């Protein structure tokens, strides 16, 4: 395996009208690594993911996936390459049961190509494959939860469903936009091992989080955004000791909590 990063962003810039939402943000993600991205509300974290995955067009900058320039590719082509993302505001197919939600990504060209869930071979019945994936991501198989309408699922399951949609594509990297937010402490506790397992499976992860304590348990490298600018990048300890970061987060309870904890 080469030491080429799996994902590299160079000088990503985005303006909305006159507002500079992202100002020349550069970063990279290594093979199998978890990179945490933190920053106060409105600092441009979601916009960064949207630019990388082409859900919005960036004003300037370049993105490389495994060394290949993907800056001009449409969103579905990028997902097709194995660069997947979750949505901060969950986007399930509300009118379908949870497991049927996965029939759609499993119908995609990438899923057909990579196929071979469980024991290899041809992609079987998409419904059963869907239930298998849901089980992996923490839906209890023998319960009725996988069969419930997505519109009736609580937040915790919807967050998992977002991840499951990515997993159905056999991703190489997942950009997670706040998968922990809105979850209870116990739900997060059950989610953390899941994230660790994804990493063990060789999937690289970018995690945008406000729940710093939980993030620091899984991510060894953190990037901080503030007003669309990259403040600093480093280990959780380095980042939290930084004066600029303290200033950006001034008054935020989370940081005080983490700082006393660290």
């Amino acid at each position, binding site marked *: 395996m080469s030491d080429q990063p799996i994902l590299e962003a160079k000088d990503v810039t985005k303006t909305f009208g006159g507002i500079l939402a992202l100002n020349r943000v550069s970063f990279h993600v290594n093979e199998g690594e978890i990179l945490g991205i933190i920053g106060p509300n409105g600092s441009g974290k979601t916009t960064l993911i949207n630019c990388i995955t082409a859900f919005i067009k960036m004003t300037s900058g370049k993105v490389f996936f495994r060394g290949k320039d993907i800056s001009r590719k449409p969103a579905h082509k990028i997902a097709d390459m194995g660069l997947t993302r979750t949505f901060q505001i969950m986007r399930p197919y509300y009118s379908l049961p949870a497991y049927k939600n996965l029939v*759609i990504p499993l119908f995609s060209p990438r*899923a057909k190509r990579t196929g071979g869930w469980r024991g290899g071979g041809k992609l079987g019945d998409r419904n059963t494959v869907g239930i298998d994936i849901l089980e992996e991501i923490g839906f209890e198989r023998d319960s009725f939860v996988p069969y419930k309408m997505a519109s009736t699922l609580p937040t915790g399951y919807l967050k998992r469903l977002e991840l499951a949609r990515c997993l159905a594509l056999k991703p190489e990297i997942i950009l997670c936009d706040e998968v922990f937010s809105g979850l209870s402490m116990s739900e997060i506790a059950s989610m953390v091992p899941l994230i660790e397992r994804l990493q063990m499976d060789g999937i690289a992860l970018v995690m945008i989080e406000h729940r710093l304590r939980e993030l620091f348990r899984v991510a060894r490298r953190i990037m901080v955004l503030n007003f669309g600018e990259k403040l600093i990048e480093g280990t959780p300890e380095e980042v939290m000791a930084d004066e600029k970061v303290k200033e950006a987060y001034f008054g935020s309870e989370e940081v005080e909590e983490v700082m006393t904890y660290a």
Partner: protein
Amino acid sequence: MEQRRKERIDRGIKVRADGLYALMSWRELGYLILPRMVLIVGMLILPFVMPSMYWQRVISIVCIYALLAVSFDFLAHFVGLVSLGGALFIGVGGYLSAIMNTSFGFPPLLAIPIATIAGAAICTLLLFPCLRLRGVYFAIVSLMYPLAMTRVIEALDILGGTDGIMGVDSFPNRWIEQYFVILMVLLFLFGARRLVNMDLGLVLRAVKDNDQAVRASGMSITFYKAVAVFISSAMGCLGGACLVHIYMWSGMSLFALDFSILPIAATVIGGAGTIVGPVLGCLILVPVSELLREFGTLRIVFYSVILVAFIVFRSEGIMVYGQRKYHQIERWVKV
């Protein structure tokens, strides 16, 4: 005053017939099959019930409109594209079949399938540029094409100009004509209902409900919209192709606005999103419209009034109402 509320409960038999158990008892099986059988048998005996030449013609026209209405309902309620292109589909399919027949000598039963496929390809190409746009553009563009077509044909005097293409062969006989169009309606009706519940159908419905998630799943929404437009325009082109062999003539009136508007009115009356409903809507609306024939083009006022009335009174449509009565018990309960 005491408050009352309508309570709806699924009938026991509906619940039982939902599962696999349905296959174990004649009663449940009958409950499932009965509505379908009524429709199929009803459609098939229509030509015998109304054997007069005039009414047989009306039945054929009902079927043409039914194809358009199924096509509209499929595209609007399962893919999220509101099409006003009924006239475009009819015109393209009609002219193509007429040309195949008069210029290349293909018999109707060969010209029709060719016109259906080729016509669908042409319509999909014509509509492709506006598939990327969101909002009302699709509706507007699909409405503009037929208007433009008539002007082009008139101005350039192509495709027979204002006289149209004469001497198009009819079906071998009127029974074949009748049963061909009836079977096509049944085929596409049940085919479309099947399709929307298959995996491909789920993807199409997802394009309507949540296109961002579809893109995030590595699928091009434009591609799947194009697939849906192809399927939908194939139904319309089939209708148009049949029509020219029924009238034995292909002319500019194939691009008439009626073909765009009546299917929508039929869908609203019959029950949007049910696919069967629009067919029922046509069975009601087209004969009534025939009875109003002497009012000429004023009939479009009649469709409009019906359409507006149903929308203003928020009617759910015949089929939705019927399904509810069939599957559920209603009763008033005190709150």
